[in-house]
């Protein structure tokens, strides 16, 4: 697997230094660069446009208040994603709890697999089935993804949608790059299992 340690834009250390010194323009540029990605990331947890926005603002607000002691070890982006994840998990712990925690093998997991199968193999005949099929497949996949452990889902998302390196993902998840590679290996296995439903 390619490791892209040297993915740090040249100007980033300068940007961080300027922010630490209280440069608001630098801070604004950091915000504008990362707002959308962080919002998307927060949204995967909280599923609310406004709550996600609030979490992102909170992260930047506390960063600004503590800017003098801001330490970035990998990349600013990884630091920000880690902070958003931390807040989002806190938020969920507060708000959600119950209901979902029925453990492995809930009806939904079984249902998801069943629907993936029916959507991809036992599909209705060729007339209006395309739309229905795509929709059912989407739903089945969404449910299967919802069943994934959070860390694995996040590793997949950051890797494939945000194009982060294993090292950055490790920073976000508070773990080692090796552990991230293990997560991604499992994710790949999940993925092939998912795709095999489409192959049979």
């Amino acid at each position: 697997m390619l490791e892209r340690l040297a993915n740090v834009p040249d100007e980033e250390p300068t940007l961080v230094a300027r922010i630490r010194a209280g440069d608001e323009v630098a801070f604004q540029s950091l915000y504008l660069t990362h707002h959308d990605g962080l919002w998307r990331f927060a949204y995967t947890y909280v599923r609310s446009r406004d709550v996600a926005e609030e979490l992102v603002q909170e992260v930047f607000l506390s960063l600004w208040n503590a800017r003098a002691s801001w330490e970035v070890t990998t990349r600013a982006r990884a630091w920000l994603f880690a902070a958003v994840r931390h807040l989002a998990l806190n938020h969920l712990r507060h708000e959600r709890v119950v209901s979902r925690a029925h453990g492995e093998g809930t009806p939904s997991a079984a249902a998801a697999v069943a629907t993936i199968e029916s959507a991809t193999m036992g599909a209705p005949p060729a007339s209006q089935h395309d739309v229905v099929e795509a929709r059912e497949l989407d739903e089945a996949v969404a449910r299967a993804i919802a069943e994934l452990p959070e860390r694995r889902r996040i590793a997949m998302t950051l890797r494939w949608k945000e194009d982060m390196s294993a090292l950055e993902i490790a920073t976000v998840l508070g773990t080692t790059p090796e552990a991230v590679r293990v997560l991604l290996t499992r994710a790949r296995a999940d993925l092939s299992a998912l795709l095999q439903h489409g192959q049979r």
Partner: protein
Amino acid sequence: MTDRPGSDELEPGLLDRYLAGECSEHEEAVVRRHLMARPDVARALAAMLRQLDGEATRPAAPNASASWEVLRRRMHAPEPVAQPSRAAPRAASITPRHPFTLLPARRVSRWQRAATIAGVAVLGTAGIYAARRRSDLPAPTPRAEESFVTANRERAELRLSDGTRVHLAPGSRLRVAGDFGETKRDVHLDGQGYFQVEHDARRPFTVHAGNAIARDLGTEFAVRSYGEDEAVQVVVRKGAVVLSGVGRLGAGDVGRIGASGVASLTHGVRVDSLLGWLDGRLVFRDAPLSQVLAELRRWHDVDVQLADSSLATLPFTGVLTDDSFRSSIDLVAATLGLRVRRTGRRVSLERIGGLTPSPDPSAAPQPR
């Protein structure tokens, strides 16, 4: 389908590199060719990428520059901003007395759009109608009563002439008495509203809802009265309220008056979850499925049928957000072990594997 063995498999790691955008051009071509030969795999892969971070159902991100302006103000304000203020500038403040703001419509998912076009069309003018609507009473001397109405999928913020702020949930109506403000402040509520009252002991603020009367003692509180078979419920966040038949409620208290007049009072409630609807979060604790669906109808304007009337009493516990009907209904179904079936615009819930027709006559197929 052709059954070709391993020769056809992609080299391990190649798909990962492809997804991460790390492939050489040659490798990319290999993956593409593979996916082209296997449209079903390609579809599943595309679905996975769409769904991985909720891309398929999530709303548009807030505008980054506008968001920065908000943040900048917060950076320079020593105190946290008092009110999360959701007031949208697309206000239709027609009446000088009680400005009325419709909150922006919830995002409409594509498949649902057709079903709600009528509702959306009304949005722009609803404020005008609502504000202009008058009671049937002749009301000769005092000013006429005023009504404020939200349809399904709409919420509204009102500021009454005394400074009181009201946040109306979807499917609600607030009537403001014609003599509001002089010696008393009476409002009538059908539905759900959150009140931030400017307290004034000389002219009490009173909410009439169903068979209940709630009088403010300086406070922020919510009243819920959707008729049907639900009790009237009063939730106090700050200050105190006097509720008819129950007595004084303080912060963290919830009073209920059932249809039969039976009253109850619960102390020390985490009212934030009961008030989650203000932020678009619908929190349910052991709520019967029928009630959950009634709430979804109001918030999303989608009617969900039950394949079997015995499902109506299944207890649901969980949090739904107002931004996606699809993810809401999917979560309900997944939690209760049900399956969502969509036929055209009709959405229904059924038991998994419940192919057998129910003997229940009410579940008989209905005309399209």
